[in-house]
């Protein structure tokens, strides 16, 4: 039996960003989506459960507010997580966490984790798709005082130990670590499955619990760092050739590139 907590980020939906005329991203009106690699974290948890038994809990925090605008979106995403095969979802909602940093997120998540009891394994995605700090796994391990191994591309369980392959820039490192431990997984570790209709129906009866910071008995000052997000202006010519004779298009393109001075005639 391996009891697993998956750490899921409710990310900004990168395909539906609301951008103001001055280039500022309006995070309050942008919809949420599950962060890409967190799907791999959930899939890996399900595979471990299928093999070794145990329970999978999802823990999350709503870090894009305001809560009243985002709550139904967050619940929709966490229902989808439950439909994938996670047994329970627990998440923190508090306007203090709106646009907070990984410092506050990790403190809030660690409090929630402690409240929920003991886990053998914590699985996160390698980084969030919106902010990409990649700090949460190491921070959670530090707060809980347990080992961490990041960028894992293969998990094996042998007794109480995890045997893990890490994807490093220059190669693959194999490490062994006893549970409990925190790991983060890469996008290549598995191919996340889609839920069946039956699972979607079942997810409606699974526990989906909300907590405020007060419920968790913690007080956070999330105003240490103010973050403002702007869209980088993309100044590209966007000259697109479609249809017609490929010989002619190729010649036009070559002429363009010579004119740009990037290829020499």
């Amino acid at each position: 039996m391996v009891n697993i907590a998956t750490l899921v980020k409710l990310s900004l939906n990168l395909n539906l960003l609301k951008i103001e005329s001055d280039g500022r991203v309006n995070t309050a009106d942008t919809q949420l989506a599950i962060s890409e690699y967190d799907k791999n974290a959930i899939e890996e948890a399900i595979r471990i459960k299928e093999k070794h038994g145990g329970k999978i809990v999802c823990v999350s925090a709503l870090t894009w507010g305001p809560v009243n605008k985002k709550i139904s979106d967050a619940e929709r995403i966490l229902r989808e997580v439950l439909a994938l095969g996670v047994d329970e979802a627990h998440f923190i909602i508090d306007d203090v966490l709106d646009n907070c940093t990984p410092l506050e997120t990790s403190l809030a998540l660690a409090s929630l984790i402690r409240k929920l009891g003991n886990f053998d394994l914590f699985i996160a995605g390698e980084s969030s798709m919106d902010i990409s700090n990649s700090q949460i796994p190491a921070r959670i391990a530090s707060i809980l005082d347990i080992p961490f191994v990041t960028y894992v591309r293969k998990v094996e369980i042998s007794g109480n130990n995890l045997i893990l392959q890490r994807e490093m820039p220059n190669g693959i490192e194999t490490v062994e670590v006893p549970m409990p431990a925190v790991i983060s997984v890469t996008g290549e570790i598995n191919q996340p499955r889609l839920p069946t209709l039956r699972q979607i129906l079942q997810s409606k009866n699974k526990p989906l619990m909300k907590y405020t910071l007060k419920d968790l008995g913690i007080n956070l000052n999330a105003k240490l760092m103010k973050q403002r997000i702007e869209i980088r202006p993309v100044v590209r010519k966007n000259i697109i050739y479609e249809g017609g004779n490929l010989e002619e298009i190729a010649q036009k393109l070559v002429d363009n590139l010579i004119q740009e001075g990037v290829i020499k005639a």
Partner: protein
Amino acid sequence: MKRNILVFSEDPRVINEAVYIANILKGNEGKIFGVSKLTEDNDVLSNFDEIHFAKENLIPEQWAKFLIKFYKENEIQYLVSPHTVNNNDIIAYVSAKYNLPMISNATSIKDNDATLIFSRQVLGGRGISYIEVEKSLKLSVTVPIKVYPRIKLDKQSLIKEITEIEKTKITSKGFEEIKKSGFNIENADVVVGIGRGFKSKEDIKLAQDLAEVLNGVIGCSRPIAADYGWLPNDLWIGISSKIIRPKLYIAVGISGAPQHVSGIMDSKIIVAINKDKNATIFKYADYGVVADLYQFLPIFTRKIKENLKK
């Protein structure tokens, strides 16, 4: 004002990448401490007031536990580190112990009198986050490699060996080095990027031929290296691997996932070739061709050859 800086890098070959920022942050009389693995490189040794070396490879957790002690003993204001996978983890672990906020991969820093303004890439490279902090705030920051100038401070460094190494429950079971291409795509003027539009490993030849006539090199999107293993990891272009700034980038059969696009944004001219006219990559392209790469690449390569001969 005195602000002591701790610069850490597991790999001593990149530690100097963070010294420029450390020197800005330290104020008038702060000290710069260095912690890394043993090196004999004098350019490293002379950049710190004090440098502490480990003789052997340490597990990230062991580095972190050493830094936790060091941080407290030396009244550190800022923890600075070159952004690598392990360095970022280690600094995050230490930051959590002292409730420090941390800015990962800060691409710029601006001194704004009472505050500092950091910026970093977000939203898969499409956005920039500006973070303003009071100068009195203790914090950690990691900085990308090859973005800030490399400087020499010519200090008389006090060199110490790290002798007390913390225990860890993690054991390393071996390391399998991935074969390298030998090409340095970060310095190439022309890069031809290969994406999932290529149906087999053998077809990469089509892109290689194009790169060759342009005196360029090939690179690839994440799946080509990480999923299929068709090309070595050092040719993988994207936010979690290589960021390139060539004069000409030609994306072939690449859809334009944020992960990839963020690695090519600073290219001077971007050309996209894709048979799907709705592919995101076209939004980022100066010139685009909606066509089957198998038909178009040989013609394009031949046309370039013909024009070069003229």
